[in-house]
């Protein structure tokens, strides 16, 4: 996993709410058995028509917008648990997604892939949309150490929350597998304590 410490870049505004993982990556593209190539089909049915031609109105097809920050409407990433959604966003070139709300599973998947979900207030999200729509060259800074997101030109900023453990993981590029495999002795002890029969916690016997 890549480290995430601080990012300063322009952003692409996706002004839609309840963006579900079926839109991020439709199920028909989930047949791959490796993690590569999903970026090409990110937002496939919003980005391309049935003949594979780019749909001009869609933000990813508008040349004026670029950058590695995706700004999206409320409740981003709802629906299916497919991690392919996080892989697709990452593979397309995004490093952070900003929204006023993230669905649980998507948020976890993003964090496990070094893609930072930045949850801001609805008011601040509105200001982010306004600033990028006004000036597509506007830069935003996302500082994970300080847990702060800033609109560069105005200095308008907001604090964001993140699980302290996950923050450490991102800053150091650790992943949960390293941590969990270092705990196998404790896990075995836990298994033994459960009286050799699954599901019966000691205290109830």
């Amino acid at each position: 996993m890549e480290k995430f410490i601080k990012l300063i870049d322009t952003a692409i505004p996706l002004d839609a709410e309840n963006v579900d993982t079926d839109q991020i990556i439709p199920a028909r593209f989930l047949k791959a058995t490796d993690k590569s190539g999903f970026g090409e089909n990110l937002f496939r049915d919003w980005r391309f028509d049935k003949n594979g031609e780019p749909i001009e109105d869609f933000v990813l097809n508008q040349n004026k917008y670029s950058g590695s920050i995706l700004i999206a409407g409320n409740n981003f990433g709802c629906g299916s648990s497919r991690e392919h959604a996080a892989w697709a966003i990452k593979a397309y070139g995004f490093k952070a997604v900003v929204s006023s709300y993230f669905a649980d599973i998507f948020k976890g998947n993003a964090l496990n892939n070094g893609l930072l979900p930045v949850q801001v207030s609805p008011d601040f999200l509105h200001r982010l949309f306004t600033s990028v729509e006004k000036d597509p060259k506007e830069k935003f800074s996302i500082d994970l150490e300080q847990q702060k997101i800033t609109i560069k030109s105005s200095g308008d900023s907001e604090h964001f929350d993140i699980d302290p453990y996950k923050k450490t993981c991102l800053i150091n590029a650790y992943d949960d597998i390293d941590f969990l495999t270092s705990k196998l002795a404790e896990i075995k002890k836990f298994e033994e304590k459960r009286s050799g029969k699954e599901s019966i916690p000691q205290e109830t016997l």
Partner: protein
Amino acid sequence: MKKTLFDKIWDSHVVESIPDGPDILYIDKHLIHEVTSPQAFNELKERNIPVFRPEQIVATADHNTPTQDQHLPVKDLLSRKQLKELSQNCEENNITLYGLGHPYNGIVHVMAPELGITQPGMTIVCGDSHTSTHGAFGTIAFGIGTSQVTQVFASQCLLVEKPKKLRVNVNGKLKKGVLPKDVILYIISKLGTNSGTGYFCEYAGNVFEEMSMEGRMTVCNMSIEMGARGGLIAPDQTTIDYVEGREFAPKGEEFEKMKAYWETLKTDEGAEFDQEYSFEAEDIEPMITYGTNPGMGIKLTGSIPIEGDKSDAKALSYMNFKPGETLLEKPINYIFIGSCTNSRIEDFRVAASYIKGKRKADNVNALIVPGSQQVATQIREEGLDKVFEEAGFTLRQPGCSACLAMNDDKIPEGEYCVSTSNRNFEGRQGPGSRTILASPLTAAATAISGKISDHTLTLN
């Protein structure tokens, strides 16, 4: 301290709590399928990490499988490769696989409960968001991403923050023709698609107590559609009777011991929830959705809300509906009865009881897909296959099928499908398809009349 059902199960599975961080949560059963596991197996291989507890993993093939000619090689090459990798990965890692054609094969959330793999008090995970289904047994069951699948392979544990607790109470007497699907669609329509985010939801009240296990599974299945990671219902005699005697359920003395424990799994009187909602059963009517998320539901005889925001406008434009419009009498060319929400024997019984002696409308393409081989067998044993056949319905082999349209079972662009599945997202049932979520009874009635119809009219 007074504990909720959720606390009791969660706390007994915590290996260690990391200060200022997540819990290390022990997982009793890990269910896997072909779509979200290959990258996890690859990662283990790359990092040279063995599968820690292969005997606690069960695999099935369901998402990406054809629903006809399952005895023949799978035609789609990518699907075939994905299925082959699942077989190889299971074989190399000593994991039990119930592959295509096996008598135990089926949709992961249908086959695991019916085989007795799912038992009260367990923690169960799967790389699929509808893992919440298993909560019907009083288990903590939730969907995970592929990185987490790798974590469970490597350690039989997950690093997770303990979610907050939500309780939804429904008490009273349900009207005739109102099915468990209507109850959950009603709840989601009232609470919205992200009301449950960050929560685990306990369903309580006499309505759930009186439901069959199949009905409880339908309810818990859709917990994720209001954003909740999982939903659960306290185990009771109905649960115990369902589990007893199943293939992998404990037997004899062991069963008695477990039963005594399962009976302790209920929320203590006075235990606190972070959020609680209550509804009256009498207010619930048969439901349908009109938009592109499961929260956009109305009663079958109702009309689309006139007040709406930008998202509603986008959804209505996709569905080609107008604010204020009534959906009753709307011509429909496709219906689908299946998916992990409604593909259990009870769902087909209720559909068949309505269909018996009738014939589908000529314009309708009616697809019936059982959730598992066992359900398919039961359909034949009870003669329901004849009912469907005589009515002109197409009965297929088990799988996820048109719920997510990974295989050939797709709804064509621009067509409406009254579907018993769980998601009406844009293009969910095929590019450009328009999904209307409903109960098996509403789907059956729609197939017969060729338009959205109020089946309750025939009940009185």
